[in-house]
């Protein structure tokens, strides 16, 4: 077994608590307004509700009046924040100082994209916020008002509701973790009517300092409540993993789920990790001459179309699952309700453990497939060389 992980940096134990006067949103926005006014950063990437519609999208906000439509925690995740961020920052240095307000799974995707050279983090301040989850996109589109209302109730109570997206129900990484993740975290849990700012990097410290905040308030209350919820959600996640391992006990379990697939590749297009300009599975590389298909259909009795559904899914998995941040964007994007996010997240759990890797946790941890040790994984070699090596060591 390998162990790539460097020693994990703990998040700090002091922060800055701010009283909530009007609303959480208002308190958070006041911080951002000040930062923009004082040119601590030049623009803010944040979700916003498109006026006169029910749509949410990302805006790169520079004009303060747009805070009216911005929303730090919208009821849905339309475009995964990692994808939004890399779409404008992958082609070179940004020049301007940008802050991005992201959900924790989005920030983890950004860190994976950073390792894949798809974002510029030098000019970027990553800010995360305690995340109550999000509602399924399809549900919201059916009845925006109703779903937005129930989201409001769920998020106020931090309820692990079955109306949330499955990815969110099973998400145990909805808050700040020990590690070098975001620069600044906004804690909502803990004390009522308080927002807690936690600087998690020198840049984060710098930001708070420039804003005139001192990090000397205790984080104990936030931490206690956060950890209680983490525990609860970890339990939920474990039972989800068990349930899905049971479902895929024989290969047909997996195939049955995916037989509804219409090969639209939305899951891949919505996934923040799938960044390739030309996907192998959209290319001509997987096509054969017609006579091969006729021969196969003769051999099998019949050939199923669309072709290569399983090749696409298992292949995509083998390309990116070590970086899967379990955000559920793929599942939200699937038009035929395939639990594709849960499948990837389940395989992600097992394979990431195999490489002792937590995607998006530490900026410094290299991607598992880009490093190696000379002495590892003897168990996958045939003849199995582990025993030989063990006796050699004794000698």
């Amino acid at each position, binding site marked *: 077994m390998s162990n790539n992980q460097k020693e994990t940096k703990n998040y700090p134990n002091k922060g800055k608590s701010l009283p909530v006067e009007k609303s959480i949103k208002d308190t958070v926005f006041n911080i951002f307004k000040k930062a923009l006014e004082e040119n601590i950063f030049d623009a803010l990437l944040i979700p916003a509700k498109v006026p006169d519609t029910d749509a949410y999208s990302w805006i790169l906000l520079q004009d303060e009046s747009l805070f009216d439509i911005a929303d730090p925690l919208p009821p849905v995740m339309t475009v995964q924040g990692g994808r939004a961020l890399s779409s404008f920052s992958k082609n070179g240095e940004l020049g301007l100082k940008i802050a991005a307000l992201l959900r924790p799974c989005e920030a983890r995707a950004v860190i994976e994209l950073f390792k894949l050279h798809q974002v510029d983090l030098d000019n970027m301040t990553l800010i995360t916020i305690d995340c109550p989850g999000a509602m399924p996109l399809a549900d919201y589109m059916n009845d925006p008002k109703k779903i937005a209302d129930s989201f409001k109730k769920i998020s106020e109570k931090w309820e692990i509701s079955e109306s949330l997206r499955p990815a969110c129900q099973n998400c145990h990484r909805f808050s700040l973790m020990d590690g070098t993740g975001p620069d600044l975290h906004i804690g909502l849990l803990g004390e009522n009517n308080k927002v807690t700012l936690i600087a998690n990097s020198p840049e984060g410290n710098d930001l708070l300092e420039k804003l005139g905040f001192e990090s000397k308030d205790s984080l104990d209350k936030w931490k206690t409540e956060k950890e209680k919820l983490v525990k609860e959600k970890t339990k939920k996640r474990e039972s989800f993993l068990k349930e899905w391992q049971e479902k895929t006990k024989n290969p*047909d379990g997996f195939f049955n789920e995916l037989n509804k697939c219409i090969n639209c590749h939305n899951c891949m297009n919505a996934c923040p990790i799938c960044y390739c300009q030309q996907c192998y599975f959209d290319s001509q590389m997987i096509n054969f001459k017609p006579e091969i298909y006729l021969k196969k259909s003769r*051999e099998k009795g019949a050939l199923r179309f669309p072709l290569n559904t399983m090749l696409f899914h298992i292949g995509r998995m083998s390309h990116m699952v070590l970086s899967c941040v379990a955000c559920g964007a793929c599942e939200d994007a699937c038009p035929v309700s395939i639990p594709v996010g849960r499948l990837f997240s389940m395989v992600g759990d*097992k394979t990431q453990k195999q490489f002792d890797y937590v995607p998006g946790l530490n900026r410094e941890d290299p991607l598992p497939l880009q490093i190696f040790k000379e002495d590892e994984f003897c168990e996958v070699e045939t003849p199995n060389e582990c025993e030989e090596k063990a006796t050699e060591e004794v000698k």
Partner: protein
Amino acid sequence: MEKKFKPNIVGFLCNWCSYAGADLAGSSKTDVDSSLSVIRVMCSSRVNSNLVLSALLWGSDGVLVAGCHPGDCHYEKGNYYARRRFALLKKIAEVLNLEPDRIQLSWISASEGKRYAEVVNKFAEDISKLGPNPLTSNPKV
């Protein structure tokens, strides 16, 4: 009597070691199971998961990836990367219960004609025992 099942196995052999090992086995007239169709690749690290998966999903009963022993790769580190990718693919097959034993990674040097024959014969025997690959006849695939 029922006809004995003869598997269809694909072997990706690296040019510098395992392919030369296969050559040696041939030229020294060692008995090698004929179920293996050899595809020569420049290095074991050339074999990405798509090749292995395509083979398994489109009709082969087993896939062998063979390269130089660790430390001996012609490109120095190729086989170390290949081993990591292989370990990942094997784990995915394990988690999804897709018969991980149908894929194998072996190290065979240019001078190991005998080892080549042993590895191939043993793998062919193992795959014969497993029987035809159910993925290739499964209408859901």
